[in-house]
């Protein structure tokens, strides 16, 4: 579906992409990882036909620069940094829907699903929204139309756990569609992808497959036991929407499937006070191309 053939991009003698060659199949859900300056954003911009470069980038056999409009009709994109658009949200939706052949209602509905009150934010300038609200609007624009490919550049960077879970559910609805997710950290996106590409100085240094048994659209119940109550832990776990028992030694809540690695990373900071942890539930992922099974699975019981 997507082919990078010896793609190089140089900025003032600094090579950012170095003869990058890569094939992305229609059933690939790709995590693009790498440190700052590895070339992730440049690679995405080449794919979007925004940069001139050496080599060839094609989407369904069409050069992404030469056939920009045709290629972009099928790509939903969420940038890493929200642009400082001064236009109100309803105007952004109107313009995007008009040029993408979609409907404003679809985008508004998605924004509402992501937790935005459109009556409240609809007339506000985009630039005046909080980081999380901007991210949700951009996600709504990207998902609120028919696309064949989604490109998300650090999509969860500004989202709280609840919004992340909704985003994961939305992406799970498009599980049979190729996705490219760029991130600094694999644990943020591991649950959403089946292939990992790591870039370093403009070259592919890792190309691996990922298997995750948990459906990215599902959530798991989690119960945590503590040796003693700790205010720092309470603050951290509170952000994940967990509730404490009366004595503050047991916490219960839900963790979105794709958020598990990130969640475990957070928990590792409090390993010293953690006495018990139990994760349960969560639908199993369907075989590729099928629908998810409804059976439950204990992901990692650790009593």
């Amino acid at each position, binding site marked *: 579906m997507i082919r990078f053939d010896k793609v190089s991009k140089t900025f003032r003698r600094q090579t950012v992409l170095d003869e990058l060659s890569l094939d992305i199949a229609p059933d690939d859900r790709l995590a693009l990882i790498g440190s700052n300056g590895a070339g992730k954003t440049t690679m995405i*911009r080449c794919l*979007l*036909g*925004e*940069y*001139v470069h050496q080599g060839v980038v094609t989407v369904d056999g069409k050069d992404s620069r030469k056939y*920009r*409009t*045709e290629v*972009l*009709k099928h*790509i939903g*994109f969420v*940038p890493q*940094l*929200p*642009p*400082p*658009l*001064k*236009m109100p949200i309803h*105007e952004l939706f109107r*313009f*995007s829907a*008009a*040029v*993408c052949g979609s409907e404003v209602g679809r985008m508004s509905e998605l924004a509402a699903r992501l937790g935005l009150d459109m009556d409240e934010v609809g007339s506000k*300038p985009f630039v005046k929204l909080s980081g999380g609200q901007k991210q949700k609007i*951009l996600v709504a624009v990207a998902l609120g139309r028919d696309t064949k490919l989604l490109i998300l550049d650090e999509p969860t960077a500004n989202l709280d756990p609840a919004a992340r879970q909704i985003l994961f559910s939305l992406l799970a609805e498009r599980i049979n569609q190729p996705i490219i997710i760029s991130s600094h950290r694999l644990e943020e996106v591991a649950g959403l992808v089946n292939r990992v590409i790591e870039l370093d100085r403009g070259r592919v240094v890792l190309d691996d497959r990922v298997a995750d048994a948990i459906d990215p659209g599902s959530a798991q119940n989690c119960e945590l036991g503590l040796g003693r109550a700790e205010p720092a832990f309470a603050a951290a776990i509170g952000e994940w929407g967990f509730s404490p028992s009366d004595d503050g030694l047991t916490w219960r809540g839900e963790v979105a499937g794709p958020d598990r690695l990130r969640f475990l990373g957070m928990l590792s900071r409090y390993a010293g006070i953690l006495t018990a942890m139990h994760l349960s539930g969560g639908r199993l992922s369907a075989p590729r191309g099928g629908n998810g099974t409804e059976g439950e699975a204990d992901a990692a019981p650790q009593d």
Partner: protein
Amino acid sequence: MKNLWHTARLDIAESLRARWFLVYSLVFGGIVASLFAFGLTESRVMGFTGLSRMLVTYIQLSMAILPVFVLITTVRSLAGDREAGVFEYMLSLPVGLAAWFWGRFMGRFIVVFLPVFIAMLLAVAYGAARGAEVPWTHFFLYTALLMSLSICFLGIGFLISGITRTTDIAQGAAFFIWLLLLMFLDLILLGIMIQEQAPPGLVVMVALLNPLQAFRAGAMMIFDPQLIMLGPSAYIILDAFGHYGYLAWSLFYPTVLGLALGSIGYHIFRRGDLP
């Protein structure tokens, strides 16, 4: 074509929200109000001459204000948008580069031309309501001249925005070009002519290639057909072009120049990195 209009509409809405547009509209509205405040008594006495004179003053003031406003605001918003990452996002949507570039050009033309035109229209309407005879020929020619001047400086602004990557450089370049064109109005040219003993025809040609001078002399010709105010240069202009020929030159040359420079800007924009 549909996306061209969507982009134009977006640019118009964006400009209407911007502070520069408010200031710009207030400046032209203010000019008309001031001209009436200070000149209407005379207008009442002199009838046709009064309104006609007011239009002449207005057009001369427009020549001083409109180009620099158009240049600075155009390059600021275009180069600023590119620098801030607006292009990266907006151009990831399936809108063609031609529709995006020329849509913004069209939208910007509407917002820079309309306040100037509406201010002039209101002046004429108010004058007519007070009983003054309206010089319709002058009015239409001035309107066409203002359109031509707006297109010309928009073209320069879009070219600068296509070439430069940062707002600072774009603004600096825009200001420099405006100063350069201002310098080459006839006072300095006359100085050069005297000092360097250059053939007068050459000096006048250089002057007429300056769109500001083309506009200025064209505006003068509307109320002073013999260009007496221009002095000896008038002979060369009238010999070379004739009255209607020069009017056509002052209307079409800045328009064509603006569209040509805009096209070069588009070509550069299309062939380079977009964000």
